[in-house]
């Protein structure tokens, strides 16, 4: 053992964080050793609090410390439009581009038969309940344009047909600042098929 046991233990814990190797973990451990007591105790408290206080919102299944979450409580948002996303991190990305407009529903996964994940293993039944209960008029399906994301989007659109809800899917195509020469044929096809008038 190179360092005293408590430091070795901290290095081991830090090494388990994504993107942190042993060298960086050692540097961080020594930073913490030399930091003020208030900083280290606050850091420890913050880490334990995320496990104690963070849970899922009972409406949209976003991660939150209060239930319902801030987004579900926001009266200014359009109550008739629901944006469907795979993960909480996807909500954050959309929210940063369109702040304060939509309400969300987080599926916590996508349909993936290869992993044995069907519609009942993600939050699709709860989404169906919300459509009826909250009188939703439009669903924006913002799952990834992957095989699994597209399958989930099609399944949701079939499932919600009886509710007379407008279903929209986020567009996929050429990124802003991109060059057509480097775009693959499938993306070009999608961009041309989903072109809009100007």
């Amino acid at each position: 053992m190179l360092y005293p046991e408590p430091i070795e233990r901290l290095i081991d814990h830090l090494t388990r964080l994504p993107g942190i190797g042993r060298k960086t973990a050692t540097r961080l451990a020594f930073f913490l050793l030399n930091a003020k007591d208030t900083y280290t105790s606050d850091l420890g408290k913050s880490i334990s609090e995320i496990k104690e206080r963070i849970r899922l919102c009972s409406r949209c299944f976003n991660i939150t410390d209060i239930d319902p979450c801030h987004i579900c409580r926001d009266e200014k948002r359009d109550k008739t439009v629901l944006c469907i996303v795979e993960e909480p991190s996807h909500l954050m990305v959309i929210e940063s581009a369109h702040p304060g407009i939509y309400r969300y529903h987080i599926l916590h996964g996508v349909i993936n038969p290869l992993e044995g994940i069907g519609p009942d293993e993600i939050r699709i039944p709860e989404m169906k309940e919300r459509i009826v209960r909250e009188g939703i008029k439009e669903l924006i399906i913002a799952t990834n344009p992957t095989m699994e994301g597209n399958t989930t989007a099609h399944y949701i659109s079939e499932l919600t047909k009886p509710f007379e809800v407008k279903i929209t899917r986020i567009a996929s195509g050429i990124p802003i600042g991109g060059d057509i020469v480097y775009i693959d044929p499938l993306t070009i096809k999608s961009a041309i098929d989903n072109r809009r008038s100007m």
Partner: protein
Amino acid sequence: MGLCKDTAMILSTRTFGESDKIVRFFSLNEGRLTGIAKGGKKSQKRFTNTLEPFNCVRIEFFEKATASMVRIENADIEESNSGLEVDLKKVCIASFFSEFVDRMTREKERNEALFETLRTVVLQTKRVELNYSDILYYELQMLDHLGYLPNFVRCVHCGIELAEGERLGFSKEKGGIVCLACSRFIPHRRYPQGFIPQLASYSPDKGRTTEAFERMGRDILEDFVSFHLDVRLKSYRLLKKVAG
């Protein structure tokens, strides 16, 4: 060793770390392989949508004798999976056969006939609506290519060839049909007359079969595969639920 160029079916993918992908694929010349695609999750140039399950791709990869995984350098789509995603049943069928090939083959075991069957079944699933009899047909074809086809012609105990009307009892333990004499001491399941010959000779161009045929066919293969190969496929449960 070195750079290999091949045609492959993508069996499954998963994210590795921040931006890489681990890809399992079944190639025409090299069989099943596992590869790492550096930047496969983020790169907009090299991979974008090529490393998606059920795609048939022209793949380039580096192989090292000392490494357990190959390094995927490039992939271009030959036939895309586009068209499967519109129907959950289609995705379940493609998933079932991909997982079947993945679990039933060994690394680097070339099987050209199995590759062609997998490519055909994915293509057919995209084009037409397969019923359960078609699924059974392709499953039997794959078992045949793998050398696991149940014996539907001779008694698996005494070896006597049975007339079609005598093919009634199937032993999952022995992996085939049993004659009347051997059926007295070999555990088996009895099926209606004509079912076993129909299952053995069924092909999609023969038209629609009955629900009873599909149910019995599913039972016979499910029992056989789970007993002999000890394989539980994750996609099978969902396929059964979706396909009815």
